């Protein structure tokens, strides 16, 4: 039975809603209360009209906050929808053999460029950095098709169709096991564009942005700038125009090109940057630390925690490149993602705790997260063991359970079996299994 709100005649009725909105009404008579519900007027307290910028949206956690995309939809999900304006994000990538920290910065830059945001790029040789920034797929028209992002998966599926695994009828309709999130609608697609790592941003797009003063390069090495001089440059750029969101993109903070920076200098820089951003609610910043600075012990005990305390969000991308044991244990991923802190500009707890699908905190404990870099894109996903459990010991014996013919497997073949399910034979590392249950 549906409950209705029936005010008592002759009294002041008050109803409270979320976000400080309350409704006050004086009830003249019960009949009037029923007939003229329009006598209830919403009184919005402290609600301010936010300026609408392209490529931003109102945060699902607070109507006083705008968020913008990082260029990676799965990272947006981890952040609770995107990076809030006036917040700073720091990426530590301690692996010296890879540059995933800079790769995330390139996505952040490309997303800003695609949305017409103003961008201030700080680091060593910004012009060289821009040449390596990814762009829309070559087949991309004015608006990218929704299916582009899933191309790779579709290709794989197509190839597999001829060798489709027979699945028990009662499990056939179960949804596919997914480890990441993507853009499901065209609206989401315009908020977070789909870029392809194989494409490069055209030169005329860069030139056009520079002419319109939407792009500013601060070459730390060439100009021999101190951190405080860099901050002054950033502040000047933010103050020059507030008609469009400003993205501050800082690459390899703490690398030799920045001079001989101490841990104190870096903490002071990040702290001041955050204080500056708070005064400019149309700007946000993403910073990647140099690999040597990203090491947990670089700035003394608790170094990464200190970085987390002076920034709004701090994440570590620990690639497996230097650790063959981890690479063999998790062949599907290229590194682990560790979350230290996440932005919460208008709430006590980070909105991501409630909204993130990948972290999964709304239902139970937090998922372990990892990332992988395919030919086309960088993806953040839940960390999961391989179907074989990740170790050779868990491979089952070749027995009569094989579907496509019995007999012992040949050299180079892998056998995977899920308990109670169906074992299959996979060739050249391609594993196709039927899951007993979806989890």
């Amino acid at each position, binding site marked *: 039975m549906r409950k209705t709100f029936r005010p008592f005649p002759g009294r002041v009725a008050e109803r409270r809603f979320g976000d*400080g909105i309350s409704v006050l009404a004086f009830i003249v008579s019960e009949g009037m209360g029923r007939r003229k519900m329009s006598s209830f007027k919403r009184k919005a307290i*402290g609600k301010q009209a936010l300026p609408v910028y392209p490529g931003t949206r109102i945060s699902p956690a607070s109507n006083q906050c705008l968020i913008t995309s990082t260029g990676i939809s799965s990272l947006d999900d981890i952040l609770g929808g995107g990076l809030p304006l006036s917040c700073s994000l720091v990426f530590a990538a301690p692996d010296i053999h890879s540059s995933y920290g800079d790769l995330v910065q390139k996505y952040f830059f490309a997303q800003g460029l695609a949305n017409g945001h103003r961008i201030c790029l700080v680091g060593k040789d910004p012009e060289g950095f821009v040449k390596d920034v990814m762009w829309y797929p070559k087949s991309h028209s004015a608006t990218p098709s929704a299916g582009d992002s899933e191309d790779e998966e579709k290709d794989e599926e197509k190839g597999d169709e001829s060798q489709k695994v027979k699945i028990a009828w009662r499990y056939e309709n179960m949804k596919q096991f997914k480890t990441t999130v993507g853009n499901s609608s065209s609206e989401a697609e315009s908020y977070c564009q789909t870029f392809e790592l194989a494409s490069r941003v055209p030169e005329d797009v860069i030139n056009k942005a520079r002419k319109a003063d939407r792009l500013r390069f601060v070459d730390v090495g060439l100009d021999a700038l101190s951190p405080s001089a860099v901050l002054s440059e950033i502040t000047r750029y933010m103050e020059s125009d507030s008609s469009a969101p400003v993205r501050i993109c800082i690459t390899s903070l703490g690398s030799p090109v920045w001079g001989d920076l101490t841990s104190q200098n870096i903490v002071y820089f990040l*702290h*001041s940057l955050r204080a500056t951003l*708070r005064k400019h609610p149309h700007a946000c910043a993403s910073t990647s630390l140099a690999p040597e600075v990203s090491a947990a012990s670089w700035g003394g005990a608790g170094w990464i925690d200190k970085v987390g305390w002076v920034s709004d969000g701090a994440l570590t991308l620990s690639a497996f490149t230097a650790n063959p044991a981890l690479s063999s244990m998790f062949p599907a991923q290229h590194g682990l993602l560790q979350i230290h802190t996440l932005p919460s500009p208008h709430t*006590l*707890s980070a909105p991501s*705790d409630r909204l993130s699908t990948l972290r999964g*905190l709304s239902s139970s404990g937090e998922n372990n997260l990892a990332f992988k870099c395919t030919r086309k894109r960088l993806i953040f996903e839940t960390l999961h063991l391989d179907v074989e459990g990740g170790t050779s010991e868990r491979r089952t014996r070749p027995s009569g359970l094989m579907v496509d013919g019995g007999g012992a497997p040949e050299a180079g073949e892998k056998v995977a079996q899920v308990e109670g399910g169906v074992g299959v034979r996979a060739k050249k590392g391609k594993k196709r299994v039927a899951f007993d249950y979806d989890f």
Partner: protein
Amino acid sequence: MPSLFSPFDLPDDIILLLSDELVAPADFILHRTLAAHLKAGLVSGRVKPKSVILSVSEGLSRWKTLAMKSNINLQTHLDLGTLEFIELSSCAEPSAEANLRGVFDRVRMALENSRPSQQPHLIILDDVSVLEWIGFSPTSVQRFIRALRSLALKANATLVLRHHVVTPNEPDELLRHLLQICTYHLEVRPLASGRSGAVSGEVALHAGFSYPSNNINPVKLLSRSSALQYCLTEAGPEFFVKGTSGGVL
């Protein structure tokens, strides 16, 4: 009248040390304390107590937004003069030690200009650790805190200091100093088992070195093993005892 630090039945007029870790920040206690103090001031009589916020890490906008969720308009209190907001992040140039002296003088002026009220005043320093990390010398930070403490004792004010723990197994020099001057130590810790959707962390309450030995109304302390757990919701924190008896898990 409800305690400033509900559900911990702490008295007013104390030096409270608040320690937290990155995974479980103690912001909620600071905001809750300020809201309780401002609400208590509304019913305390004609002379309102003064609240002073020394903000190192957060801007005024976040304080305002979170106070709004407790139905408190900070701008009104700022206009009335019952609240003084001093942003240290804007004036903190670590090379100039005189800045902390200037901040202290502002706090002293704020308390001296306010008339004595029935309720004690409140001083909140939201981040002691960052002051040291950005370059203030440990000696100047310790002097600043000592001066704040003596000012709070003189002005009959409650002083809340927050310190971040980045090495949980090795207390740093500053934490040791803070433990010596505080009356109570409220320790906010994350769960040892990692982040959870149902429990955000736990709070233990310890006696500080300045805890009065002849306390007439002893406060119930909470050791780490009997720490109170909490969950952060939109409306604020919800506290519950460990285990399944509270019906949370």
